[in-house]
């Protein structure tokens, strides 16, 4: 590639991402295009090619008739979704469960990072981190297996502890609708609070140490430092995290719910994703499943775009 012109300039030039579009230079850049090509093809096939399949939502799709011959039904599937009490309940469940998750997955890691920051013994701090990050890396299949075992009403570890302390009957954590929601939210926080705290710990370590030194001279004690330096230093990133999580309002956690739920708790625990799976792939109603899934995708898309715009505007956050 030595024959390439001198414009092949890898010298440290300032980023020019705001420059107007320039013409492609295939002669110079072909190796780079070649490098992007496989990734591009995979993304085009598996992310973009399914998008036209959304027409199923406006059809009464039959696999043997295909997209072109299946009858068109307009917005019938969406009308069904709105009028069908089961589908409405599923949307409501999704919203309730994910709202609780979003709120607590912000508060708990925030407080945990704050408390962990007060630990001065480094070894202890590291041990705590090692333990609390671990559940994040385990799949919901594994944790589903574990939770079904320890939450069992017939001698599960948790119920053993509860019944030995309080004079109550064993709790149907996974068999009662309200308890199911509670279990889903708590186990989700349990799994991820440690890992989610990393971004807050990074924010804390980014606080200028001279602020603390100055506060000591001004006579601030540790609590005051926490209140007036550490917490304000964490707020901007908390706002970003909170804003971006809005895009997840219809993501109540398919992997988790699918591995924990059962027909007893469908009325309170069934969410859009699990419903789409059962209606679409198990019962074979592709069109209705696609319509419900599309409802989720479109709402999420709008929310994510709004969230990113807000995060960009107010916190100057961007992903690339």
């Amino acid at each position, binding site marked *: 590639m*030595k024959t390439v012109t001198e414009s092949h*300039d*890898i010298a*440290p*030039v300032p980023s020019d991402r705001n420059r107007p*579009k320039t013409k492609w230079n295939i002669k110079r850049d072909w*190796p*780079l295009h070649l*490098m*992007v090509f*496989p*990734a*591009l093809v*995979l*993304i085009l096939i*598996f992310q*973009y090619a*399914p*998008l036209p*399949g959304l027409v*199923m939502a406006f059809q009464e799709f039959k*696999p043997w008739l295909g997209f072109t011959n299946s009858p068109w039904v307009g917005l019938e599937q969406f009308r069904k979704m709105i009028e069908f009490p089961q589908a409405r309940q599923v949307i409501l469940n999704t919203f309730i469960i994910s709202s609780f998750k979003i709120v607590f997955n912000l508060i708990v890691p925030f407080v945990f990072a704050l*408390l*962990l920051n*007060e*630990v001065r*013994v480094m070894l202890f701090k590291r*041990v705590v981190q090692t*333990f*609390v990050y*671990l559940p994040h*890396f*385990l*799949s919901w*299949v*594994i944790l*589903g*297996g*574990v939770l*079904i*075992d320890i939450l069992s009403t*017939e*001698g599960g570890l948790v119920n053993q502890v509860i019944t030995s302390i309080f004079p109550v009957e064993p709790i149907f954590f996974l068999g009662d609708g309200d308890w199911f929601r509670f279990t889903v939210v708590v186990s989700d926080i349990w799994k991820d609070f440690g890992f989610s705290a990393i971004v807050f710990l*990074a924010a804390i370590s*980014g606080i200028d140490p001279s602020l603390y030194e100055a506060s*000591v001279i001004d006579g601030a*004690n*540790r*609590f005051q430092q926490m209140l007036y330096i550490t917490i304000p230093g964490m707020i901007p990133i908390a706002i970003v995290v909170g804003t971006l999580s809005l895009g997840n309002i219809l993501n109540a956690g*398919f*992997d988790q719910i699918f*591995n924990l739920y059962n027909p007893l708790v469908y009325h309170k625990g069934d969410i859009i994703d699990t419903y*789409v*799976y059962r209606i*679409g792939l198990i019962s074979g109603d*592709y069109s209705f499943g696609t319509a419900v*899934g599309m409802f989720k995708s479109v709402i999420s898309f709008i929310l994510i*775009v709004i969230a990113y715009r807000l995060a960009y505007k107010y916190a100057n956050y961007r*992903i*690339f």
Partner: protein
Amino acid sequence: MHHISLPYRIFTVCNNIFLAFLSFLCIAPLLHILAVSFSDPSAASANLVKLWPVGFTLDAYNETIGNENFSRALWNGIVRTVAGTAFSMFFMTLAAYALSKDNADFRGRNAYMWVFVFTMLLNAGLIPTYVLVQKLGLINSVWALILPNAISIFNMILLMNFFRSSVPKTLEEAAYIDGASHFRTVFSIYIPISLPAIATVSLFTMVWHWNSWFDGLIYLTDTRKYPLSTFLQTIIVQQDTTQMNIDPEDLKMLSERTVRASQVFIGTAPILLVYPFLQRYFVKGIVLGAVKE
């Protein structure tokens, strides 16, 4: 060190106790499963096992490993993880290198970025994707587990940001002057320098593959091809064995409580094995990805 007030000292003690308790809560369920897996089956079914094995025995592990359904699924899981990670990393690294250029050095880079990033915002959803994979004829093939998610935009951007911030431009310039091609530059400069970042992303990809179960459930119709996660999902979580062509005797054995626990633990073991390496790097990687420039 300045004076530390008594209330703060009391707070510190309470805080440490609380955090120690929290840490315990995070691993206690796993300790319990581990204890059950090493216990005598009768002690386990009588709920005598808490966090320490009762009547220590390795029988459950012998049965699990010796069971050909389980060992086949374990092997499938390993194959899927190794092949899938190698495939993903190769193509993600190449793309991340090209995309780490500025638009002036690689005209079209920004256009590519938009094509990639848009997929983080909108996806077609389960059923159109399933129909597509079916039309491509990938049903019941291991490629259905490798191809659809081979390019993780998030990981690719992580690599790209690392390349942008950590590879000295002067080094690359020197290589260019010496006549190195782009491919040469990737393999001789970028990859060696970025080994920690590449290791981090590889580990994340491995964990993702090892933990993935749903794609196996929907794309594989032959249960003998199930990777371990999908196998465990069917046997232990769903406890739906109507689809599995497993000998009833084997099935009875596999649903014994201690044997179930040992299967769960073996499913966890690879994660625990890579966890120390993962932990060393992920904080760095995430921080790098989150706060660049």
